[in-house]
């Protein structure tokens, strides 16, 4: 494998690691945000739904 290709592959690997980690971190933050905002401003008319008709 040419050296340049390996160098770019290693860079891509690093971007993958950082990218996936950051993506999950952001989604987890949004998850917390979503739960918090929903708790602070709850909606009305709560009703349960059966999973299948």
């Amino acid at each position, binding site marked *: 494998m040419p050296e340049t290709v390996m160098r770019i*592959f290693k860079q*891509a690997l690093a*971007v993958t690691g950082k*990218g*996936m980690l950051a*993506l999950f971190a952001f989604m987890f933050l949004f998850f917390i945000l*979503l739960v918090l*905002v929903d708790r602070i*401003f709850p909606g009305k*008319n709560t009703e349960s739904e059966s999973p299948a008709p």
Partner: protein
Amino acid sequence: MEGLFIGFTAITWKQLLMMAVGGGLIYLAIKKEYEPALLLPIGFGTILVNIPYSSVLDQVEGGRQIVGALSIFFRAGILTEIFPLLIFIAIGAMIDFSPLFRKPILLLFGAAAQFGIFFAMMAAALFGFGLKEAAAIGVIGSADGPTSIYVASRFARNLLGPISVAAYSYMALVPIIQPPVIKLLTSRRERLIRMDGSQRKISQTTLVLFPILVTVLTGMFAPTAVALIGFLMFGNLVRECGVLKKLSLAAQNELASLVTLLLGITIASTMTAERFLQVSTLFIIGLGLCAFIFDTAGGVLFAKLLNLFLKKKINPMIGAAGISAFPMSARVIHTMGLKEDPSNYLLMYAVSANVSGQIGSVLAGGLILALVH
């Protein structure tokens, strides 16, 4: 008189082949209904730009530069990133985040199902593409046309044509690509898992605050992603604010239709024979398929991983809906669930995962822009 036949004498077999490619895209758009709003303009545009001395592209005539209409659109709409960003406003106005609030954990699938982006990027690097080109190719796996175009216009303008065609073609092929991958990675017992939840109403304050807070939060950590996520969330705010109904409808319909039309035909300006007929195009088409396969696998395997820790198990097929192809992927999962058990309705959960995929794909595009130098 000679001038009348200049097209016939100057045309090359490569240009004829590209016209056939354009015809093929028009066929797929009309007969198979594969993303017709995009593939039809791209197909017709491909024919336009491969006519010798076509006046839709910049030409030099008698030492004088004549400006072509599609070249103007390309410089004004793609190079400035205006067209993809306008599309994000339209998409944002179409998204209803309320299903996500009912099952927030599904938000994580929007991250897991982006794995194909990174897998394809690494594979592209191994095939000899530069890092920026590899990243642009990987973003086909966002299953989100405007994000692919946005990143490609920054990182690999020379590959914009094949990347766009691959992105939109595979989005249309989600019903063919996803089911075999899901079946391969799940047992029948897993596919039969039922899910329960509530269908409570979400307050308007919550729905208004969410897009604003997401934009600010993303912007503070990754400013390069602000344009992408900001325009998407702006569109959503217009939808949810409740006082801009006309604008919201205009964004969802007229803006979306008009910009899609312009985006499609403008992308076609890069589909000239000398640019498109390269070995790299074949690699891009192949790597795009890999990206979609590994997106699906990433989502399904993450759901299986979560199930190891959850009391109430998640149907792992839902994980595959974490890609951005909305609502196609959600429908595919719902149909697969019904095939296994006609009384198992997964649509609401699949839609939630699919909506999270829309946030995830845009975010992934922004992160790629921030991380790749």
